[in-house]
């Protein structure tokens, strides 16, 4: 099958970036500023993962994704469990699509 080599190549180039820090991180002891950078990564990453991607949930209708994201935002402010935040945003977008 001609796709097998493609899949193997994809696997390799996907695993390498994931693996490199596992191999090399040990050999470094980071200065304080670098530790702060590392600790900031989750917040920066989640920000960039959320926006503008959330507008592409339905590609031609950015408002649908924004609406779902808005519902998730409000539910998170209520300190609900993460599963409920997910379920609430899913339900909201499903209902919006069904009744619009």
């Amino acid at each position, binding site marked *: 099958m001609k796709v097998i080599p493609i899949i193997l190549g*994809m696997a390799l180039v996907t695993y390498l970036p994931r693996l490199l820090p596992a*191999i090399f*991180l040990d050999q470094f002891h980071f200065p304080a500023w670098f530790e702060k950078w590392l600790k900031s990564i989750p917040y920066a990453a989640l920000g960039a993962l959320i926006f503008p991607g959330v507008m592409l949930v339905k590609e031609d209708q950015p408002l649908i994704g924004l609406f779902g994201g808005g519902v998730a935002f409000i539910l998170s402010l209520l300190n609900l469990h*993460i599963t409920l935040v997910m*379920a609430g945003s899913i339900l*909201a977008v499903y209902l919006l699509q069904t009744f619009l």
Partner: protein
Amino acid sequence: MKNSPTWIKGIQSGLPIALGYFPIALAFGALAGQAQLNWSEATLMSLIVFAGASQFVSVSMLLAGAGAAQIITTTLFLNLRHLIMSLAVNNQIRKFSPGWKAFLSFFITDETFALLTLGKDSGQPDLRTPSYMTGLMITAYLGWVSGTMLGGLGAGFIPLEITTAMTVGLYGLFIGLLVPPARKSLCLALIALVSMLLNWILVQLVKQGWAIVIAIILAAGLGVFLLKEEV
């Protein structure tokens, strides 16, 4: 459930991801079929690549007649962000053996990274164990792989409205993880907002995959100046 073993807690933490992945993987399996991948090839891809967005892109590139080099290069750039996420995760698990680190790093995705670094268990050092992380990772992985297999076999036809709605669910996961800490700290909220803005500008300027990498590196750099030592 307070005294359950850590791997069970890992499974519990991974379940929302698995449930979020499953319907999207079903859609991926079905789409892969349209690009002449049989169910075993689609499943193989999910088994050894395990990176959703790039898998969808590769299938649409196959449909468009792209060559191997083009698809593999695009995959590399799309998944470069995992390098930064893996840095953050591996910095938390320095005490693990090299074998565990290499094994667990395979499963770093946007979602598992988000849950490991910002989930409600992430602040508990006694849960930072190989068994907890394996439980979480394998649960998420099985959601993705089993969904792909069933979708490839044509078992799970899911209407587009439901797939769209389920995609929002993963954004709900990110938002639900980000909002609580961002609420407590203006600095953290600012880092996230700047990152959103940078990414929004950069996606219009640079190639797919790079925007998010640059946005994360720069916005996290803000933390160097904003965060106090003990954060």
